[in-house]
């Protein structure tokens, strides 16, 4: 690995000062599961590594009446072991449970998954579905960016020199709502999404009619996508209505811009997008009715 310096600040101000001083030549370290591999292979060569795990704000994990506050450095295993998250923000727990193996989940953070900004990042379609907002701190003060506007391209995001992601904030879940994230991979575990879909669904009192929905898509465009039309066509219709689900699938297929690569072709990704949108919406609706999901990751 190349030579670099290391600091582990204990306050946000110290972290911002260290990042700003190195003007784009510094990189935050949370779980390191992307950064350390990128440095080992020479894809990133920061002069300074800023370990952000000792900053209290980045370790927050609070579910309350105000919603979910998830510090950017909290590892995946803490996320899915948190009962409040598993209950009310299930799509996020679903994603955290399938990012790498247990060794990775014990280190890798959702904030790191976001900041690494892969189009295939598993947590992001779930975060989009759950209406996450990125809380950013920097030399010019704090700002907030909705998750679907955080990404600018593969590996790229809106963070400017000296800025860091502090936490992801999600609003409280409305009654009769549920969420789910699922991806397609050719193996059972330990793989990168060919297509990933997250959805949250709020139902009317009848437990069937969709009151509101949000759908996030991963690995099918240069950035993760909010599929607004796909969610809109479901509103006012029953989740048992095959035509409604089929319309949502078509609307999702209409906004994707997939590539051909070793993981799949454009045509395959388009097909799988539609299939997963239908399955994930059904599953989110089942959770909204309080049903437990008969779903085993990888199967």
């Amino acid at each position: 690995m190349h030579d670099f310096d290391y600091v582990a600040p204990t306050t946000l101000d110290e972290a911002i000062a260290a990042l700003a001083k190195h003007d784009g030549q510094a990189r935050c370290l949370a779980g390191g599961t992307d950064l350390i591999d990128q440095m080992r292979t020479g894809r990133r060569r920061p002069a300074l590594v800023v370990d952000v795990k000792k900053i209290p704000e980045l370790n927050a994990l609070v579910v309350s009446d105000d919603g979910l506050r998830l510090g950017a450095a909290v590892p995946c295993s803490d996320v899915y072991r948190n009962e409040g998250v598993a209950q009310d923000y299930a799509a996020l727990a679903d994603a955290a449970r399938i990012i790498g193996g247990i060794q990775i989940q014990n280190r890798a953070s959702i904030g790191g998954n976001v900041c690494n900004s892969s189009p295939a990042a598993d947590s992001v379609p779930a975060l989009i579905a759950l209406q996450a907002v990125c809380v950013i701190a920097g030399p010019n003060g704090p700002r907030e960016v909705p998750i679907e506007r955080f990404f600018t391209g593969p590996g790229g995001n809106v963070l400017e020199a000296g800025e860091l992601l502090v936490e992801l904030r999600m609003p409280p879940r409305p009654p009769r709502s549920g969420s789910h994230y699922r991806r397609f991979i050719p193996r059972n575990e330990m793989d990168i999404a060919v297509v990933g879909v997250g959805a949250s669904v709020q139902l009317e009192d009848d437990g069937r009619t969709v009151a509101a929905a949000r759908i996030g898509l991963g690995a099918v465009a240069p950035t993760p996508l909010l599929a607004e039309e796909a969610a809109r066509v479901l509103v006012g219709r029953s989740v048992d209505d095959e035509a409604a689900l089929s319309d949502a699938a078509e609307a999702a297929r209409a906004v994707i811009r997939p590539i051909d690569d070793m993981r799949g072709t454009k045509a395959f990704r388009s097909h799988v997008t539609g299939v997963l949108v239908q399955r994930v919406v059904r599953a989110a609706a089942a959770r909204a009715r309080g049903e437990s999901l008969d779903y085993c990751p990888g199967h």
Partner: protein
Amino acid sequence: MAKKRVVSAVINGEPTDFLCEPRQTLLEVLRDVLDFTGTKEGCSNGNCGACTVRLNGRIVDSCLVLAVECDGAEIETIEGMAGPDALHPLQQAFLEGAALQCGICTPGFLVAAKALLEENPNPTEQQIRFFLAGNLCRCTGYDKIVRAVQACAAAASEH
């Protein structure tokens, strides 16, 4: 050149100070500085789990940890697994079940399987396979490893 740092950690119960550069991984320091060569280097990118150790109780890939991050940490390696007089029951089960061939992946599997059984003393086959998905073995085809973990769990529940 970035200055070397002094890191104080507890390794297998022993307070240990070592010097390292920021760019050295925990795996490199364990093997090349501290001579804990039981921890193996496989892929060095977090796929294979051969370098699995416990860091503050949790299993991690030591190739994806910087040694400087470990100041104040508790680390457990395969060298800390056996008791003074006998192998750990999982090690014994791996031996009796022939759950290894070349042996490079074995320390990682043992450290991970120990963490699994502490958390879930009676895992199902599926739970074992899911928990050990971050450990790769190119020799055994996994069945004997899974059966050894099951045998160890079954023996422990009889006592």
